[in-house]
């Protein structure tokens, strides 16, 4: 039977190292299966977060050979098994133990976003056409795996996570996706553009598209969420012609 050598990060934020495990490879096996094998046969105390094993709960995010990925969606037969496979925790958030990181910063960011505010509370008047929600539905696919947050260099390398002063804050691609879904919603009337510019920090994104590259739901984060939001910020703040048009007609 084929074998794979897994090198898995064991430890916490202060100390830790990659530990070798030999795993028998079965057809269709994913990295998460291998991690479960380690828990079952070598090391029951290996900490890992998972839930669905179907790439839908967004819990099993890790960095496999340095690439932010869902462990349950990363197949062993995609690798050259003569080489070891390295599994590390996601790097942008603080490590708790082994493969488990503390992603609660993301939930704090989420709380700063103004929720959906409908035109009317009377749901009988809610008539929504498919063409109006196609765009928004793409964003609803998000499983909050936070792989995009992990890979985004604004958070990863520049650490723009200051929720206190909000000056050094970038909400990150996942929340740009949420914000785009709210802003483009035909029934929503809240205006989040000042928030998007001044607090969520959309200007920190330099559209280098790593978020799009790693999203397991294949959401076109940069093209369909962030760039349209940047353009909406331009409408509001940087376009003198539109400003004049608004002043004259009173329309947006």
């Amino acid at each position, binding site marked *: 039977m084929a074998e794979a050598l897994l090198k898995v990060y064991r430890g916490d*934020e202060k100390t830790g190292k990659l530990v070798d495990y030999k795993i028998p490879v079965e057809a269709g096996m994913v990295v998460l299966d291998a991690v479960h094998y380690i828990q079952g046969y070598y090391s029951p105390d290996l900490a890992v977060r998972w839930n669905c094993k179907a790439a839908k709960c967004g819990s099993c995010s890790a*960095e496999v*050979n*340095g*690439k*932010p990925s869902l462990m349950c969606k990363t197949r062993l037969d995609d690798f050259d098994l003569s*080489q070891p496979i*390295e599994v*590390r925790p996601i*790097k*942008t*958030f*603080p*490590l708790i133990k082994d493969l488990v990181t*503390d992603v609660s*910063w993301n939930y*704090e960011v989420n709380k700063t976003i103004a929720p959906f505010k409908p035109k009317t509370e009377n749901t009988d008047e809610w008539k929504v*056409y498919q*063409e*109006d929600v196609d765009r928004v539905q793409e964003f609803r696919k998000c499983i909050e795996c936070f792989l995009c947050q992990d*890979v985004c*260099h*604004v*958070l*990863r*390398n*520049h*650490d*723009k*996570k200051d*929720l*206190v002063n909000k000056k050094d804050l*970038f909400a990150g691609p996942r929340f740009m996706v949420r914000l785009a879904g709210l*802003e*483009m*919603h*035909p029934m*929503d009337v809240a205006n989040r553009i000042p928030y998007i510019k001044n607090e969520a*920090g959309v*200007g*920190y*994104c*330099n*559209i*280098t*598209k*790593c978020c799009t*590259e*790693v999203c397991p739901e294949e959401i076109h984060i940069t*093209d369909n969420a962030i*760039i*349209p939001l*940047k*353009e*909406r910020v*331009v*409408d509001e*703040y*940087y*376009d003198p012609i539109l400003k004049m048009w608004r002043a004259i007609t009173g329309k947006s």
Partner: protein
Amino acid sequence: MVNSASMATNDNFGQTERRDAWWLAPLLTALGLGIFGIYATWAAFQGVNYEWGPYLSPFYSPLLQFSWLPRWFSPALLILPFPLIFRGSCYYYRKAYYRAYFVDPPACAVGEILPHKNYKGETAFPFILQNLHRFTFYIAVIFIAILWYDAIVAFDFGGKFGIGLGSLIMLVNIILLSLYTFSCHSWRHLIGGRLDCFSCSKMTEARHKAWSRISLFNEHHMLWAWMSLFTVGFTDLYIRMVAAGVWHDWRLF
């Protein structure tokens, strides 16, 4: 306050756990843009061999010649700044050169030169100017119209319709330039993306149709960006070579 510190802020330049050839794409981008940049600068300063028969190099169109300009001043220098700021502020090229030249980041999950807190992204000068991209698009549309005119004139050989290899090259070039220009993200936004309700009126329905079509082309914006960059350079090279007598224009008709 939640603990949120990133373990990657201390990564050195190029530091990564990735084991694939992550450096290849930024290297090719840097070479591609670099070669074009050097050729275009050289060609723009020539001031000669930019037209032959009915052909006019896209680097020199519209051809602005003023008697008060010094002889050494090439007419290309008057117009090239406009396509340059259009491409320079294009959402695709921004990604390309932020990665390839500013290595910010060089590739995904790879350490940067300055992983510090002073990063400003596009919130401060100079990159905040990228927000003016739509205005460079408006100017680019004027250039597209002019280059279509040039491409049509390129089939007019002294009052008689004809087809030379140069006519075809100019036609392919303007088609690709049009695809690139009209797949622009700002244009996609202005035509319909900025609406929240597509079904609200006849007008918004029409804009939704236009937006959907443009979205199809927009998905391949990067492809059009590279193809049109290549053809615009090659069109100049072809006309330059024919005008210099190095190549012979091949008349098909």
